[in-house]
């Protein structure tokens, strides 16, 4: 045990602690002598090392050494303290490496999703770059960046090298726009309203229908439809309601809860809005 190659190993330390409690136990080895000047590493500052040693001793004395050796009386000796300091320094190094790996992990957590999209305005690849608190969506014409940490989204148009910033506050104002529009329309004079209606008629049909729905306080009627394959949700489709041509016949404003999909198991589809 005395000549063990690994004096700091848990096994040796445990054996030493047990031996120390036995009657007639040999005394602790004398503290190591300070290194001679010619034994010091050139350029190494003894004062610096002492400061680190003292700091490590102070850090370790209340936590580690007392637990591992069970002997408080010899802790003050510089040899044991140095040995424990080295042990603690090694542990700190391991901890530092683990910490570095842990903090580096989020940078490895990126997810890239590539889709093929076809819409009237966008066709081709849509690439999503996803990280826990941020998102980037790339299409052929636009780039959207969402930063949850800033509570802000940015819409970039690379062709013009311009971007628009969207904040929560702006979005909330946008949500109130239909109400403002309806109130404005109510306060219009008959002549003003006639001009507005004329302008509405000049809009493309889809756009006009959208404005009319907003004025009426109605949401578009659409449905989720799912397709099962081996018990998995494979596809989701939102067709227009065929009976109403995609427009709600309800005059009652739809509440947010109405848009939560519900499962119609008999027809094997999900209805998203009624």
């Amino acid at each position: 045990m005395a000549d063990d190659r690994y004096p700091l190993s848990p096994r040796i330390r445990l054996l030493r602690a047990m031996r120390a409690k036995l009657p007639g136990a040999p005394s602790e080895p004398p503290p190591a002598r300070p290194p001679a000047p010619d034994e010091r590493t050139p350029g190494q500052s003894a004062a610096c090392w002492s400061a680190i040693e003292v700091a490590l001793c102070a850090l370790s004395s209340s936590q580690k050494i007392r637990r591992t050796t069970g002997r408080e009386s010899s802790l003050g000796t510089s040899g044991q303290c140095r040995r424990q300091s080295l042990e603690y320094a090694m542990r700190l190094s391991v901890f530092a490496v683990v910490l570095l790996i842990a903090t580096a992990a989020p940078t490895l957590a990126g997810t890239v999703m590539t889709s093929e999209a076809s819409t009237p305005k966008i066709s081709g690849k849509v690439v999503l770059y996803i990280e826990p608190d941020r998102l980037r969506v790339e299409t052929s014409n636009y780039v959207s960046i969402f930063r949850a940490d800033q509570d802000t989204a940015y819409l970039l148009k690379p062709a013009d090298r311009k971007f628009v910033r969207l904040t929560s506050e702006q979005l909330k104002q946008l949500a109130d726009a239909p109400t403002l529009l309806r109130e404005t329309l109510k306060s219009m004079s008959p002549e003003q309203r006639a001009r507005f209606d004329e302008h509405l008629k000049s809009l493309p049909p889809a756009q006009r229908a959208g404005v009319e729905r907003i004025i009426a306080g109605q949401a578009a009627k659409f449905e989720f439809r799912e397709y099962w394959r081996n018990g998995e949700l494979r596809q989701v489709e939102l067709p227009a309601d065929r009976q109403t041509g995609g427009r709600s016949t309800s005059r009652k404003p739809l509440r947010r809860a109405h848009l939560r999909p519900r499962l119609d198991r008999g027809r094997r589809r999900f209805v998203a809005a009624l």
Partner: protein
Amino acid sequence: MRTSDLGLTEDDVGSLQRFNDFMGQGLPQELGAFSTVDRRAFEKLVGYAAHPVHTEIPTANMQMTLENVEKKPLSPDLFEIPAGYEEDSKLATH
């Protein structure tokens, strides 16, 4: 499709839901959230964390099909406004 079958956890794609919630603030109350990308709605429907692999919105004449998913380190620059871009109060969409 199960999110786990794509090799992903909910944490991996959590920002999609956060983006959905964020943009949902801009929708009129009567219109609700973007149901097509509402991950909570999907999970409630099918009983597990799911991700659509194919989406069609006939009213918007839109289709989208997921082709590839991979995990890799992403440059922080991807989430920053590139140098030289000017802020505009209104973005032309045509």
